[in-house]
């Protein structure tokens, strides 16, 4: 192969996404810094959301992530995501300018089919207006429709903004990863579990698979 792997940056399983943002140190500080950033006035309806559409979008995505996250990703990393799961990546545009993006993947993981949010960025002048929420919501919906059972990601424990955002979407902090980032900061592994039909008898979907599934989950009293 033309590409020789260099040094592994971390264990294969520890993706270093959702990484310390360049302005880093979580949202508390981001907030004060954002004060200095000139906010752009716009209506929510002026923002256009597009699914990843091809190589012409790649520089936009890379540019945004490079700006906001400290971790250096090779072009292969980006391509890995956007070529394999173009339907899970979205971009937000305002008057032709790319102002936010989300990059994700999904796949089999220890006998579950799960989605993973790798990168999420909204540029500073556009923050706090629900753009990120809209971006991830779109990805998560596609994941759900594609049969994912859950969605995961990692976020720095100090990134209050991201934690609040995901908390509102129903993510829980499943575990804490000690010194996860190379700057020594811990991360939370966040998880969102989708409802399984058999636990919600009111939902009409797939009532006939009920019995096969409920057996291997904890005791449930009727």
């Amino acid at each position, binding site marked *: *192969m*033309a590409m020789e792997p260099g040094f*592994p940056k971390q264990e*294969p399983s520890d993706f270093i996404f959702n990484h310390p943002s360049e302005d880093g140190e979580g949202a508390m500080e981001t907030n004060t810094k954002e004060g200095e950033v000139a906010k752009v006035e716009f209506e929510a309806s002026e923002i256009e959301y597009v699914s990843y559409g091809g190589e012409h979008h790649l520089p936009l995505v890379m540019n945004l992530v490079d700006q906001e996250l400290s971790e250096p990703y090779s072009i292969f990393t980006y391509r*890995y995501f956007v070529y394999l799961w173009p339907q899970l990546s979205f971009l937000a545009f305002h008057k032709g300018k790319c102002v936010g993006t989300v990059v994700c993947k999904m796949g089999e993981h220890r006998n579950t089919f799960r989605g993973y949010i790798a990168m999420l960025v909204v540029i500073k002048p556009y923050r706090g207006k629900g753009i990120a929420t809209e971006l991830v*919501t779109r990805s998560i919906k596609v994941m759900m429709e594609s049969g994912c059972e859950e969605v995961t990601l990692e976020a720095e424990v100090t990134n209050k903004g991201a934690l609040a955002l995901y908390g509102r979407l*129903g993510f829980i902090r499943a575990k804490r990863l000690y010194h996860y980032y190379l700057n020594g900061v811990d991360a939370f592994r966040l998880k969102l*579990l989708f409802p399984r039909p058999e636990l919600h008898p009111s939902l009409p979907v797939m009532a006939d698979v009920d019995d096969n599934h409920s057996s291997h989950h904890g*005791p449930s009293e009727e």
Partner: protein
Amino acid sequence: MAEMRTDEAAFGVAISGRTSIPSGENSVWADVSPLLEAACEDLQEGELIHGDNFNLFAAMSALEIMDPKMDSGIVCTYYSLEEAIENGAAPVPISVDKTTDIRCTIDIMDHLLACEATWHKGHSLAQTVYSCLYLLRPERTLSHALLHAYCKVIHVTCKAVLSVVSDARTHEEEDLFTMAYGLPLGGGDRDERCLSMLNAVEETISRQLRACKASSSKRRLLEDIEPLQSNPDLEEGYCRALLCRLRFRKHFYHLLMSMKRPQGRGLELARKHIASCILELDGCLKSSEFLRASAHGMCEKNIQDTTASGCQAIGFDASLNCRLSAPTPPRSIKILSWVKAIEYFLKLLRDLDIVCSYSLVPSLEAALHFVIKFQKSQPDLVARSHLQLLLVQDGKLYGQIPIFAVITGAAGLPEVTNDHDIQKNEFVVQLGQLVINLLKILCTNAAWQRRKLGKMLQDWRVTYVQLELAFKNEFGEGSKPSNNELRFKIFQQILMWVEEQTYWIASRFLILGFELELYSVHDYYMVYWYIYAILIKLAEKTHLRIVMNNSTAKKKAKKKRDSFKDAGRDYQISAAVLFLQSQIYLAEGLSMMFAALRNEHIILAPQGPFNTEHEIFIQQFELLQKACLPDHVSYMSFKESTKLVNFSTLAMCDYFKEAQRIAKDVKSSFANDPDKMAELRRVEQVAEHNNIALNVICRVGAIDPSLKVTFEFSHHPFFATAIVKRS
């Protein structure tokens, strides 16, 4: 590794022609440029290789050559250590001027200390301590006795610390710590030689100190002693600054060696060295005023403040090692400041002192409590590793007590059972392994600990079920057999204890979630409910065990006609359960308070677009549910017991008052146990505050929509205190 070497050698050959790794028997060097060019031609822009072996890991590991963010090769100042040395990056002596030489040597010592602390805090050895070029070529400093001795002791110290941590290793996520590929650790010399060198320089410098302090009359007698350096005004200050640094190293090394002795035999001696280390570090701190003053304006400013003098230390280059030591990213790491490094060492010493002061009480319960208490001060990896090695050596508790004896002791069985051949039962063996793992896991950092405890619950549960099955197979469902009473009894009591211990682990697992900030306020409601459910079971099992132990004890006592002690024992027993009881009421009260706050819409439950509270419950307690801890507990039972709670029903239940009352009553039984006393006091406080808060809410809550209820952990680490405000 193979790629790394190729890459490095290629650079070496192409650029300086200096590094040359000869072709081996099965390998020759080849120019890959044409191949690379052809490969580039082959791939059009926008194409991606699809291959089974090109996964995310491969994609992330790919480098863009010549991109300074990724290519560690190009950030280096020098291509090789040799080149750095030839360029005078690490001169020996550091200066021909003796005074400058001493000043710079002290800076190197200080920067090394800062590097060492940074390493202990979890960075790679290569990018911290071994960024020191002098350490990388130990033979070069031979002519500089002071620097040489210091470098040697650093070598052996690092080696010793490394071995403690890797011996204790439970695969915490602190792997970087133990990576030491290709570094000249220990320097090849015998450790004792390093100590004699250190002693020799210390001896010389203390004579020099004496000489410069002596009155002029005596000075003549000491004439033959050459001063440390050339400026008489600075002689005393430099001698002192060096002595405390050297002595710290000496005692620190001795400390490590004493702690290494088996079965805790060196602990007492270790404490003496700890006291000396603290004294010398204090001396180092005090020397900093003198060092700053005498270095003023003489050197390049040290922006990271890694030295006492404020000067940049000579002879360090972290980038050289980047390429040597896969897998380190090109990013340079931030070395702790010298003051922070001293603070780190002081904390380490205090933590080690706690470890050394432990009296190795021969009981599992005591050991478990000791670890939990020790962890409260959040000790770092090195201190935790030492504790772990003390607790578990050769598969025995403290290296002394066989694990089966530990188990029978914990299960309240008499000593005669220690040799019973039931210990050969495969599930009993398995249980022994679980106990050892438990002790080790409790010594790890809280994040890792919680995950491992969570997983371990399943193992405890399975072992319980297997033991129970073996028990039933052997004895049937019927009553006590007459022929093998002892075996029956051992089985029975171990089984009971396993259950109790499992619930103990479960409660620890849940409680750690608070320390790790895993729960949001909205989760508290179900978390306290679950804690309550677990604690009830724990209390029940504890009670059963104590009653059973007691009946054993009574029988014995009767034989000895000594029923006097008995009464005291009985009292003690119910105290342990009452202690839990106070926490149970508190947990129940909190979960019911949260339920009422939600049911009365004072706290609004969040509703995400994708899932419900049910999914949150499943996720939070998945590991407990899988292990049936407790049996018959589910989301349904949780909802069942909380859905009708409101303030009028709550007011009648008095959970907090009960908690407070029990805590108060039971205190007298723990007069000799300061830890339990402190916990009871905390429980009392939280209960009292929450009771008041609850009364306020009950009185005005329903009619006053502006009421705001928030929660704090001001009185207790995991039982929240409600704060009521009107906005």
